[in-house]
């Protein structure tokens, strides 16, 4: 799967929980999920479960802990596909 497609699906999963619409409009690999998009930390766990379901992968807590940006998520998921 192309990284651009992973990115598109990651953003789609995040979108319902984004509190900062402006940041979403300019979302990129460097966008911080918690600080820029204002997704809360509990929701981030739920989003990770959605990543697992959507991409049919498993993501360990240790990997989740390293995900700060949209790019981190895309890279992590891409590595597991």
């Amino acid at each position: 799967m192309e990284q651009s497609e992973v990115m598109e699906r990651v953003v789609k999963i995040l979108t319902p929980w984004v509190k900062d619409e402006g940041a979403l409009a300019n979302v990129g690999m460097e966008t911080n999920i918690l600080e820029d998009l204002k997704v809360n930390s509990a929701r981030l766990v739920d989003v990770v479960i959605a990543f697992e379901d959507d991409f049919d992968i498993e993501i360990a807590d240790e990997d989740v802990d390293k995900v700060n940006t949209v790019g981190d998520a895309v890279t992590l998921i891409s590595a597991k596909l």
Partner: protein
Amino acid sequence: MIGNDIVDLEDPDARPETFRPRFDERVFDVAERRSIVRDADPHMRRWAHWAAKEAGYKLGRQATEDFVFTPSRLVARFESIESEESGRTIRKGTLALPRSIAPGFGHLELRSDETSERVHVLAAPPGADWDAITEATEIVSADADPSDRVRALARFMIARDLGIEETRVAIGRRGDPRAGGAAKIPTALIDGARSGLVLSLSHHGRFVACAMTLRSDPDAVPRGTRSGAAGSGAAGGGDMNGCEAMRRGWGSTSPARNEVVG
């Protein structure tokens, strides 16, 4: 070290039906899930357990940047109701930590401050002097930036408790994920220098919360900055621009020591 976390129970993002069915299984261990479903208020209990894990994580990151957030392995247990008055319930509890992620800690102590609107949990090391810990919560307006407001609350608390001008206090942080650092731990600066005060910040929904202790490293406060320092648990004055802030000396179970500021 201290950690705190607040959850707005009425925030749309806290509604259990909006979470995937596997959320509870991923986040809570079997005993916690049992405790949640058996509680008279499962919604409160669920987020109290979550806040305990977050508070424990924040404390753990102060100890080591290697502390990983593995929620189901941070097991909270709320054992008793310490006091109950005016719609607020204070509970004691513990947070069990696996030795593999927190060498030196078997568990942390918890205090949970619960109302119908929010739950605020503090975590401290075993044997902590809860009298030395102060905390405040504040409701912020919808158009306010909660990150800014929680830092303003921290500056207010520090200035009040040290008896210094608020303009001398700034809140920074060490470690920035964008700069490659893993931690983003808030630190209090006084006159631009690291103070050594132990600080934990949290915000969710309408609420911001700050917890801190002044006594852990008193020598770190620059000499001459104290002028009639109130110390924890003392009655402080002040005005948070009309916002409500509550302050508690956690060592006391007496509701008379609670205070509404502003």
